[in-house]
């Protein structure tokens, strides 16, 4: 019997793992809890340091997983039970009802246009900066491009009636809307499991002194991605309340390296995300004054230091000192910090403040970790088998980690980690299949 693998999480880590394992000839089930694969990377505008458009490089991979003959996509689904052991895991996956018949939906969007709640529901994909309908696709390049009814918002599903007639149902020419759908469970038999459940951005309201949630022009780096993105709520213009900021401040290490939040660790990506954002502001608003407050700039990856050099050359000012508080004076925000290189407390005015929020473990990973028997590191992320030598293995044979579920990582490190997990899974699957040893065929000749 050909062995299969289960990959949990359809972000870039899960996508890459699934593609590699499938390319090696194994069947892969890719389970994603959201209606589309893509994960956090799909929310990004550009990627550092090359400024590749994130959607442009991610979309082909998303399309690839959907099209791969060896991959079965289970979107809007969650793993609810795991039994057995390596080589023979029996996994239960709950498929949540979309209330949309996937075989009929053409992704035309008439339903969302017709929805009573159109433009009223806070859109998590747009990091709460935009609004959507109760029936939605998370983003235009979604894979699969099938609509989903948000059961927590839909008037019919929450209150039992939606006027005299369902507007979405009436609007759907394909007859795809089906409110009779029920949750379904499927059982999978797999030889290896890769956990690629990703991260959450740090909740910036836990740093009240920075005024997030108080001032609308204090936003997080994820929100900046959406602001800057062509497919975002402002169509790529850096606008807040319709106004273009003149003075923009970036604040590093929000929720990272910070005992007050319990997150002692460095989140590894925020320095470069900010450098990229600072560049984007300069690119879109040439005469904007851009200041970055930091304690150490961690530009460690390939081409990162060079990018940091470039951003400073573009006129972005780096001032060494963590920001202590933000308040309002007149129309402007005032950022209080010390410039530790001058030894002086300073006040910096701003129209827009971007908090470079760190990466934290997803709370919903924990029940899954419990099901799989996985442990946590001190920082709360999933624990690998050995900090130095076994970054993708876990204490459980046949269960592997990929990407930010194991700890913060940028995209290339995530891809490498995911491919490493794929390699581990392939080795495990081939072992289970009891392949016959391929004879030592590669030596042609030896001469003296």
């Amino acid at each position, binding site marked *: 019997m050909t062995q299969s693998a289960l990959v949990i999480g359809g972000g870039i880590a899960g996508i890459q793992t699934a593609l590699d394992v499938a390319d090696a000839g194994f069947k892969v089930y890719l389970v994603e809890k959201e209606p589309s694969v893509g994960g956090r990377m799909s929310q990004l505008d550009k990627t550092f340091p090359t400024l590749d458009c994130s959607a442009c490089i991610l979309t082909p991979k998303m399309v690839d997983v959907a099209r791969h003959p060896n991959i079965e996509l289970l979107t809007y689904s969650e793993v609810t039970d795991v039994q057995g052991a390596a080589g023979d895991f029996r996994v239960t996956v709950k498929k949540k009802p979309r209330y949309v018949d996937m075989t009929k939906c053409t992704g035309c969007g008439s339903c969302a246009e017709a929805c009573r709640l159109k433009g009223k529901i806070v859109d998590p994909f747009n990091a709460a900066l935009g609004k959507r309908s109760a029936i939605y696709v998370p983003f235009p390049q979604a894979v699969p491009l099938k609509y989903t009814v948000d059961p927590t918002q839909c008037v019919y599903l929450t209150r039992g009636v939606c006027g005299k007639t369902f507007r979405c149902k009436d609007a759907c020419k394909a007859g795809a809307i089906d409110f009779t759908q029920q949750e379904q469970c499927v059982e999978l038999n797999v030889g290896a499991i890769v956990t690629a459940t990703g991260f959450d951005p740090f909740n910036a309201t836990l740093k009240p002194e920075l005024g997030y949630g108080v001032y609308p022009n204090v936003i997080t780096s994820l929100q900046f991605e959406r602001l800057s993105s062509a497919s975002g709520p402002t169509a790529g213009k850096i606008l807040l309340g319709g106004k273009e900021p003149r003075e923009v401040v970036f604040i590093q290490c929000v929720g990272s390296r910070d005992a*007050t939040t319990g997150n002692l660790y460095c989140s590894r990506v925020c320095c470069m995300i900010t450098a990229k954002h600072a560049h984007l502001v300069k690119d879109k608003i040439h005469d904007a004054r851009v200041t970055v407050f930091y304690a150490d700039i961690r530009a460690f990856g390939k081409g990162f230091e060079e990018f940091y050099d470039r951003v400073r050359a573009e006129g972005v000012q780096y001032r060494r000192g963590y920001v*202590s508080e933000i308040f309002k004076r007149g129309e402007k925000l005032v950022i209080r910090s*010390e410039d530790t290189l001058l030894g002086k407390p300073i006040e910096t005015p701003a129209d827009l403040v971007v908090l470079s929020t760190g990466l934290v473990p997803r709370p919903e990973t924990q029940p899954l970790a419990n099901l799989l028997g996985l442990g946590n590191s001190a920082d709360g992320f999933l624990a690998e088998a050995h900090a130095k030598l076994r970054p993708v293995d876990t204490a459980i044979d046949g269960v592997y980690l990929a990407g930010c579920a194991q700890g913060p990582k940028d995209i290339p490190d995530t891809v490498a980690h995911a491919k490493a997990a794929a390699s581990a899974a392939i080795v495990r699957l081939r072992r289970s299949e009891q392949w016959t040893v391929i004879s030592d065929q590669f030596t042609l000749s030896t001469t003296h």
Partner: protein
Amino acid sequence: MLDTETLVQQFDLLACIQCGKCTGGCPISPKSALNPRALIYHMLLGGDFELVSRDELWDCTTCATCGMRCPKGVKAYDLIIGLRGQWIESGKIPTTLRAPLTATLNQGNPLVLPREDRTLWADGLDVKNVAEGAEMALFTCCENAYDPRVQPMPKALVRILRAANIAFGTLGLDEQCCGSEIRRVGESGLFEYLRDDNLEKFQAAGVKKLVTTSPHCYNVYKNEYGSPGIAVEHYTQTVARLIAEDKFKFGKKFEATVTYQDPCFLGKQNGVYDEPRAVLKALPGVKFVEMDRSRERSVCCEGGGGRMWLEGTNTKVRLANDRIAQARETGATVLATACPFCFLTLSDAVVATGHENDLKVMDIAQIVNAAI
């Protein structure tokens, strides 16, 4: 010479990464030479440090914002208190501190008033002694006990507790300074004496629960007396609970727009932000408005850390004056607080800025009392 190595160990300064968050958030640093980060760095580097030339050390209000925000858990204000301690030990005690310290030792209060006058504020109120049997002991701050400007506050509190039928008492003439400010000016010996003496008196009177008028007393009992098995509450917590339990009715309306100054020792240092607001919002007639800088982002009134007795190096800029301006921006007519130090500094500032007619500083207890 200053033993910086010991200070480094004592205050865990090795954790510091010199990020400047302490100095950046310090309410005093913009107007003074005080720079907590640079102080820490000095200690880390060792070498000469001429303590007694550092007058700015007396500018610190021990509001603790520096320590609260430090990403590495360093408490810069504790270092400053430690340095003050070394200064005091050297015998060169700042002149204005001498009398309060001596009086606290001899009379049990820093206001240089007789010990036997401590209960004068309660004359005619018929307040029981806690030893006679009471569910809680009301602990009045020295300021509330002696300073006529803030004596109305404990009086109001007595009426509130009575309206809720709470059996309470005071320690009578056994009450003396809690030592919070004494510790903060660096007189740790005197503080330890007061602590031990007070604990003995609490035990003798059988105190199980202590309600304080001042956030400073609240903080010191809660956090710096060890764990003597006595429950401690600030009175705003007590009143908020009584209101939630529906223990008394408000007979009158208090028609005013009210904003609130978070005392650092209540809010920032102990996370008590909601109870004072809950009390104000529960009062009929009160329209509650927030200042922009409130709760975790509140600003010190410059009354703590011994600053009641020390002018500081820069008297031209006073934080309390700024605070009055910020309170007026909200449109409030009453600036509420729940701390005798805040009350006094803000009251002075209202006068100094010439706004005594359009902004009234009141303690929450007074406002509640006015609505009963």
